[in-house]
């Protein structure tokens, strides 16, 4: 094979030198009115967005804000679904709502294909990834994931209180995706920084934000170079060698997809595991039912995904239009709140309650339409294994200090501090070695 020099020139440039997009004023004042001035970065939203979303759904139902250069927030399931399906009028060229809109020329590829891609490019970019994320493909990660969960619990030996977010949930998706991408396991702690920089740093000054994003791409480029020098059986080598339409991928496509898999694979699953443990810690009846009847777990997992859907996406309006009673302008943001859709009483009976044996559950936690989360089978495996291992070893646990629980800001929501009282964990190293 000829030397692969695709990455030498095109990625060395500072990614801040891309064609100028649109920068908008950073507004950090507290929200005055959620219907006309919402911000998903307001601490009240992070702490508990559901009363806000429920109220807006009843009286609005599409909220607006002048922040971020203008953004809309539909809160009904039907509107969220309609936008997810309408790729003609709503673009994915940026899916992180903030004060920077990438230039229109970035469509239909976007910065992190295929999540940032529009048709027709989207279909083939997504098709490249699908075989690596089928249920059968991800099941190969299950034994190692289970052993890793047990090893994390082994480390709780002697502790009465542990942080289920930072000492358990956070580590599981990092370990899994780092293994799939073929990055050094010891780099895991850096990924939390990358995730926070990309997803939570959206009100930082533009130069600082660009510099932080640049750090991630520098890291990914170094991994690409190592994989070119020594190819192996992992997703990084797969993407480097993958072809679309008879040609190897553009270098920005390779690295953008690596960024997507890393970022989207970590924060989301960490949040789902953490929110599930938070719910079970504060709801003894649900916890006891699951411990007594493990056959309920699959339905319970879907219900926890519905009730605490960690992911909100964003779209950009393509052209000025009147839509469902509001006047949207070209380049307005739309916050595509799957959490809001999942709690719409018009779609779900007892929408505000967690019903762990819910039978009919067409929730939208992994999105709807062509952008259905490509990692949903992986996320479900990780969530199931993480909860099975925890319930096996720590059947009795509770919030150690409800007031100390903190939640992430921005579009991915999950607990970031979650002190739980665990008593004494069952089993030990012997059990961990024997399982999986």
């Amino acid at each position, binding site marked *: 094979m000829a030397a692969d020099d695709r990455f030498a020139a095109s990625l060395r440039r500072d990614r801040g030198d891309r064609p100028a997009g649109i920068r908008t004023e950073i507004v950090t004042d507290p929200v005055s009115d959620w219907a006309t001035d919402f911000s998903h970065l307001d601490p009240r939203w992070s702490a508990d967005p559901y009363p806000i979303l429920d109220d807006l759904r009843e009286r609005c139902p599409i909220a607006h804000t002048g922040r971020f250069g203008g953004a809309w927030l539909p809160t009904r399931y039907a509107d969220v679904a309609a936008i997810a399906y309408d790729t003609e009028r709503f673009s994915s060229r940026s899916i992180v709502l903030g004060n920077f809109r990438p230039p229109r020329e970035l469509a239909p590829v976007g910065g992190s294909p295929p999540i940032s891609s529009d048709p027709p490019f989207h279909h083939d970019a997504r098709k490249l990834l*699908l*075989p690596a994320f089928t249920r059968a493909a991800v099941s190969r990660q299950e034994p190692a994931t289970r052993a890793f969960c047990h090893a994390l619990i082994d480390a709780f030996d002697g502790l009465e209180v542990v942080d289920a977010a930072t000492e358990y949930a956070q580590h599981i998706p990092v370990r899994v995706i780092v293994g799939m991408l073929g990055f050094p396991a010891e780099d895991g702690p850096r990924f939390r920084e990358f995730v926070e920089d990309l997803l939570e740093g959206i009100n930082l000054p533009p130069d600082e934000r660009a510099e932080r994003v640049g750090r991630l791409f520098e890291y990914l480029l170094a991994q690409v170079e190592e994989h070119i020098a020594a190819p192996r059986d992992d997703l990084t080598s797969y993407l480097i060698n993958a072809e679309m339409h008879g040609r190897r991928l553009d270098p920005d496509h390779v690295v953008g997809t690596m960024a997507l898999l890393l970022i989207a694979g970590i924060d989301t699953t960490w949040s789902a595991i953490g929110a599930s443990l938070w719910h079970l810690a504060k709801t003894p009846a649900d916890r006891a039912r699951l411990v007594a009847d493990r056959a309920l777990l699959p339905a319970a997992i879907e219900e926890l995904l519905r009730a605490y859907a960690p992911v909100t996406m964003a779209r950009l309006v393509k052209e000025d239009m009147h839509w469902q009673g509001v006047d949207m302008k070209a380049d307005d943001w739309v916050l595509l709140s799957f959490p809001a859709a999942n709690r719409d009483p018009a779609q779900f009976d007892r929408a505000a309650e967690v019903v762990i044996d819910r039978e009919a*559950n067409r929730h939208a936690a992994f999105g709807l339409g062509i952008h259905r989360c490509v990692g949903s089978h992986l996320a479900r495996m990780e969530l199931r294994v993480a909860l099975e291992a925890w319930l096996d070893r720590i059947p009795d646990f509770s919030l150690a200090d409800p007031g100390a629980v903190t939640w992430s800001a921005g579009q991915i929501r999950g607990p970031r501090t979650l002190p739980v009282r665990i008593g004494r964990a069952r089993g030990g190293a012997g059990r961990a070695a024997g399982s999986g």
Partner: protein
Amino acid sequence: MRVQIDTARCQGHGRCYDLAPALFEDDEEGYGQVLGDGSVPPGREREARLAVLNCPERAISLTEES
């Protein structure tokens, strides 16, 4: 009773082959497909209904046959 998948709607969520593995399987890209001709054997009616009720894309339909 017969199950069908509207392949134009299916996005590979996989709820059908998780909930009703006797009636559905996944293809090599994770999209759902019906096993055989989609006939629901006696005793599998509940699974078939669960698959319908949990498909986020409403891609699955159930036709009653006498």
